[in-house]
């Protein structure tokens, strides 16, 4: 375990730094690496300083934090539901967030209010799904999954409705939000705080999650207080997903693909997978956002398009290659 932990961090930490540097260097204007260094450690042109420090750095950090949160949330949800194909949006979270955000946009509220509405919508959906899945009996992963899928379908209908009745001028902004968009993220630091705190708190519980992955009865027989642990995972995963969605909109595939890919490479020890998913998600979203800014520069693509186009083939390949 120690070896794969060190290996994962040894690969992913430098890759994280590299992904942020790439995000700083590329865009509508390319900045050569020496110039990039001089922005931090010396004299640089005013244009480069503004571009790197005021525009690209906050955006890259926002993308990294949101990706990290989504990767972590995905890893947690997959253990909770004991299903390697679960994702952070399985509980209808992105749908609730989207409806909240679109309603705020329709009302012409500020970007801050849109984020706040998205957060409220995400939590509302979480409570709704959990309450319904709980019902009169005890909840099972299957029941939670099904409830989430159906509630998500309900949110989907509401999203279509809002799009249908919205004025045409609002539509591009709304569609970008729905597909995931980092361009309006300006203050990445709260999300970073959440990411660091949750990742550090999750680390010592990795072994507990390993045991939980073998089913609630087996876990209880090995001394895990199953119900409180499951509740905690549920609440934490919902909160960090809501935080990520608030930053970058409903970016898909990060939480699904990153933990799964890392599992195929580093094995199934949650003590490795949890921190690796945080870093891997951050790397993926940072690079995807850099591509989104670069491919048709100066125009920008929604980052969700890139994560899907990158993630789907990679995921299918790894799945095809695995036993």
């Amino acid at each position, binding site marked *: *375990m*120690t070896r794969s932990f060190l290996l994962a961090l040894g690969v992913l930490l430098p890759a994280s730094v590299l992904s942020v540097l790439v995000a700083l260097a590329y865009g509508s204007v390319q900045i050569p690496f020496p110039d990039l260094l001089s922005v931090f450690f010396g004299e640089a042109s005013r244009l480069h300083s503004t571009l790197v420090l005021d525009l690209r750095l906050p955006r890259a950090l926002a993308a990294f934090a949101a990706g990290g949160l989504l990767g972590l949330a995905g890893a947690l949800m997959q*253990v909770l539901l*004991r*299903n*390697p194909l679960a994702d952070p949006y399985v509980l209808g979270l992105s749908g609730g967030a989207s409806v909240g955000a679109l309603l705020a946009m329709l009302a012409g509220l500020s970007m801050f209010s849109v984020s706040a509405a998205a957060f409220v919508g995400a939590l509302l959906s979480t409570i709704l799904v959990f309450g319904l899945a709980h019902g009169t009996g005890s909840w099972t992963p299957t029941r939670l999954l099904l409830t989430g899928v159906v509630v998500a379908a309900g949110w989907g209908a509401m999203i279509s409705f809002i799009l249908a009745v919205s004025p045409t001028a609002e539509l591009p902004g709304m569609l970008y939000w729905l597909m995931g968009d980092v361009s309006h993220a300006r203050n990445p630091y709260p999300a970073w705080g959440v990411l660091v705190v949750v990742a550090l708190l999750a680390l*010592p*519980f990795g*072994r*507990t999650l*390993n*045991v939980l*992955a*073998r*089913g609630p*009865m*087996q876990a*209880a*027989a*090995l*001394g*895990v*207080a199953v119900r409180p642990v499951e509740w905690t995972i549920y609440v934490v995963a919902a909160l960090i997903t809501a935080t990520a969605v608030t930053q970058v909109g409903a970016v898909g595939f990060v939480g699904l693909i990153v933990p799964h890919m890392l*599992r195929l490479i580093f094995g*199934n*020890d949650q003590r490795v997978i949890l921190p690796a998913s945080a870093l891997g998600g951050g790397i993926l979203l940072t690079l995807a956002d850099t591509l989104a800014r670069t491919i048709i520069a100066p125009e920008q693509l929604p980052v969700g398009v890139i994560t899907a186009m990158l993630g789907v083939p990679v995921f299918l390949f790894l799945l095809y290659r695995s*036993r």
Partner: protein
Amino acid sequence: MPRTPPPAPAATQPHDTPGLGARSVHQEPGPKTLLATHDLVIDVPERPPGSPLDLTVDPGQCWGILGPNGAGKSTLLQTLAGLRAARAGTIKVKGQSIATLARAELARRLGLVFQTHHDGFPATVLETALIGRHPYLRPWDIESSEDYARARAALAAMDLADLEDRMVDTLSGGERQRLAIATVLTQDPSLLLLDEPTSQLDLHHQVAVLNRVQAIVGQENRGAVLVLHDVNLAARYCDHLLLLFPDGQACWGPTATMLVPSALERLYNQRLSVGEVDGLPVFLPRNE
């Protein structure tokens, strides 16, 4: 041998020794008692309470639970392990009520091997055996070389040493069952609760597993409770038996007093032929 199944033991005296009419001595729990239940009624849906169980498992004892399908054997075992709520009664493990014991502490005192095994995510044989150390490790602890040594010793005892790097989902049914037993051996609790530990094993491994259990029970302050379907193995390895009837009635006592053919025939609703091998009774189903 009676040709018709015998009448039921009187329901009012459930733990009378079956067929002999002599009441088995109720053992009071002592200071070293591993497991003691008082008026325990397990929760099998839509079943009358039947006989409340007053069981006492002391160090050095190996109990066998016999009964037909659906009699509640697994439910009883899981209730004893604190995984299911009982309908009534109390359970004490090493003198302390399981209601007040922390889960991890309970897992250091007793370990349970389930009948079926779920492996949510792929894992190796060694990783699976190692989770038996979980109750002993604090959140930040990483398995020490001693933990690895215990897991490897348990795997070796179950003839799995050569398979430690194999993925669990590639094991055969019998190998998977031996791995589950190796996991509980790694856990090393005072009281072993094994649910049909030999159901998927070949003859050699059935004997190997039960010999191992017997050896553990022979150590200081150890005991075991096994659910078995093989009366003959129970007769050879268990010193106490609990017969669980489908209607919730039960009787229990030392093995020699419990192996009454008429009671076993009623238990399984099956006529039996009785023989003797090595001075011990052998029961075979009679087809007529």
